C-alpha cells in the first residue's frame, strides 16, 4: 500500500499537537501547505519562528509582550494604585476592550485547582505580593472566572493579601448588559440578586 512521504507524515504529526487540531484537520492543513505556493509557506514559517522568539511574558505583569516591561507597565498615565488580576494574558485584552479600566494588570497564569494539581506555587501569587508593597498599590481588583476554582482562587487571594493590608475587590456578578431577565440563567440571577445595589 502506498503511504505518505515521511516528511509529510512528520508535518501532520507536528500539526496535530496544536490545540483544537485533530488528526483529520492536521492532514488537511499539511496537504494544503505542501502543495501551496513556496513563498507563502516560507513566510508562514518565518512568522512562527519570529513570533516565538520575540514574544515573551512581561516580567512584571505577565502579559504577552515584545519588550520587557510591557507597554502597559511602562505607561505612566495609568494608575499605579489599581491592579486588576486576571487568569490568562488574553483576559487583559478583554478588559482593555471595555476601555474603562485605567490601572495596571497582573496575570495569575491559572487558577487554584486541586483536581488538576494546580497549587498556589504554580501561580504568580508571590510576584503579586512583591508588587503590592513597592508600587504603592491601594486596591486589587479580581477579574477571575466565576466557576468553583475561580471563586476559591478569589477567596484565597483575598486572604493572602489581607495580611499586607490592602483592599481586595472582585467584579460584580450581574446580568448581561442590554438584555432582559429572560437571557440570564438562574444562577446568574441568584447572584445578581445577592449583589444588588441601591438605586438612589
Amino acid at each position, binding site marked *: 500500500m502506498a503511504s505518505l512521504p515521511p516528511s509529510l507524515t512528520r508535518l501532520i504529526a507536528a500539526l496535530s499537537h496544536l490545540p483544537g487540531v485533530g488528526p483529520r484537520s492536521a492532514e488537511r492543513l499539511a496537504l494544503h501547505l505542501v502543495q501551496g505556493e513556496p513563498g507563502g509557506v516560507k513566510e508562514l514559517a518565518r512568522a512562527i519562528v519570529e513570533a516565538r522568539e520575540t514574544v515573551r511574558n512581561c516580567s512584571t505583569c505577565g502579559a504577552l509582550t515584545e519588550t520587557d516591561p510591557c507597554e502597559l507597565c511602562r505607561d505612566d498615565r495609568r494608575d499605579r494604585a489599581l491592579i486588576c488580576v486576571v487568569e490568562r494574558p488574553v483576559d487583559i485584552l478583554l478588559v482593555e476592550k471595555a476601555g474603562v479600566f485605567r490601572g495596571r494588570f497582573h496575570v495569575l497564569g491559572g487558577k*487554584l*485547582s*486541586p*483536581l488538576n494539581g494546580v*497549587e*498556589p506555587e504554580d501561580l504568580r501569587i508571590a510576584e503579586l505580593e512583591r508588587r503590592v508593597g513597592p508600587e504603592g498599590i491601594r486596591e486589587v481588583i479580581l477579574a477571575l472566572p466565576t*466557576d*468553583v*476554582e475561580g*471563586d*476559591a*482562587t478569589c*477567596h*484565597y487571594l483575598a*486572604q*493572602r493579601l489581607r495580611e499586607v493590608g490592602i483592599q481586595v475587590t472582585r467584579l460584580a456578578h450581574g446580568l448581561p448588559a442590554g438584555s432582559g431577565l429572560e437571557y440570564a*440563567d*438562574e*444562577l446568574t440571577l*441568584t447572584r445578581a440578586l445577592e449583589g444588588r445595589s441601591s438605586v438612589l
Partner: protein
Amino acid sequence: MHLAQLRLRDFRNYARLDVDLTPGFHLLLGGNAQGKTNILEAIYLLATLRSFRGVGGAQMIRHDHRGYFVGATVVGEGTHAVKMYWSPKERRLTLNGDPVRRLGDYLGVLRVVVFCTEDLQLVKGAAGQRRRFLNLLLAQTHPAYLTMLQRYARAVRSRNALLRQRPLDETALESFSREVVGTGTEITRLRHELIPRISPLARLAYRRISNDAEELKLEYRPSVRADFAAELARVRTRELNYRTTLVGPHRDDLDLTLDRKPASQFGSEGQKRSLAVALKMAQAEYVTGLRGAPPILLIDDVMGELDAKRRAGLLPLLERSHQASGQVFMTCTEENWPHELGRRLQRWEVVSGTLNRVADGAAAPA
C-alpha cells in the same frame, strides 16, 4: 408532553428504528429479551442523559458497532427536536439542531418518570439511591439545581484532594470549604423544602396501592442540621484523619418509615415494592402539579409484580396522564398484560429489535 417520533440507530439490539407516536397509552408486548426495556431506556436516556440501568454509554452501543444514536421529536411547550450521538470518542447532543452548551437548558425539555424493578433499591439500597431520587426530582422542577449540584460535587472533590495533601494548605482548604458551604447550604435548603411537598403525595399513593393501613412517612435526614461551616469546624480533626469531607448534602438520607418503623428493615417485600411505586407516583404527581403537564411515564415490568389491587391503585395516575394528552409506555410479556387497561391503547409487538404496530381491533393477547 409526548414524543411524536422516536429514532434509534445501533442502540442495544436495535439496528434501526423509526417510529411515529401519538399521545396516549402504548403497550409494548413481547417475549423476554426482545427489546422492550431497551425502548424505555432510550427514552429515559434522552430525558436525563443517563441509563436507568445505571450503565455507561459503551454498554448501550449495539454489539460490534461504533456508536449509538437516539433522537426524538418532543411535543410539550412547543415542539423540540432532540438528538444524541455517543461513541467512546465522540459525544454530540443537539436541541433543535444547535449543540447544547448548558445542561440546564436541555434537561427541562423532556420530562419522564420511570417505574422499574430497580426502584426497589430506593427502599432497600444505600442512601445514595435516595439522594439520586431527590436530585432528579429537584433537577426536574428547579432550574438552578443541577448547576448547583455540579458545583457542589466539584468543590467537595477539590476539598478532598486538598485534605489528602501533606503539608496541609490551610488557606486553600478554607477557600474551597467556603464554596462547599455556600452551595451545600442551598442544596440542603431546597431538599428541606421538597420533602414536605412530596410526602403527602407519596402517602396518598401508598394508601391507594397497598392493602395496609400503615402510615407512610418521609423524613429528610440532612447531614447538616444547623450551620454548615460550624459543623465542618467540629469534624475537623476527624477529617484530617479520614482525609475526606465528612459532612454535607453528599451524606444526606431520606428516611422511609411505615408506622414509624424503618421500611427497609421491617417492611415485607410487598410493602417495599408498593412503597417504591408510591415514591415514583409522588414524583410524577409533583412534576405534573408544578409544570401543569404530566411527564411521560415509562413503566417497565412493574405491573407483573403487583397484584390486582395494587395495579388498580396505579390506574388513576395512568388515566390522568391519558386525559391530559400525556403519554405512557408500558412493557409487558403476553402473560401478564393488564386487561383492566383494555380501552384505547396502542399495542406494539416487540420482536428482536423491531417494533410492529398491532392494528386496532386485533385480538388482545389471551
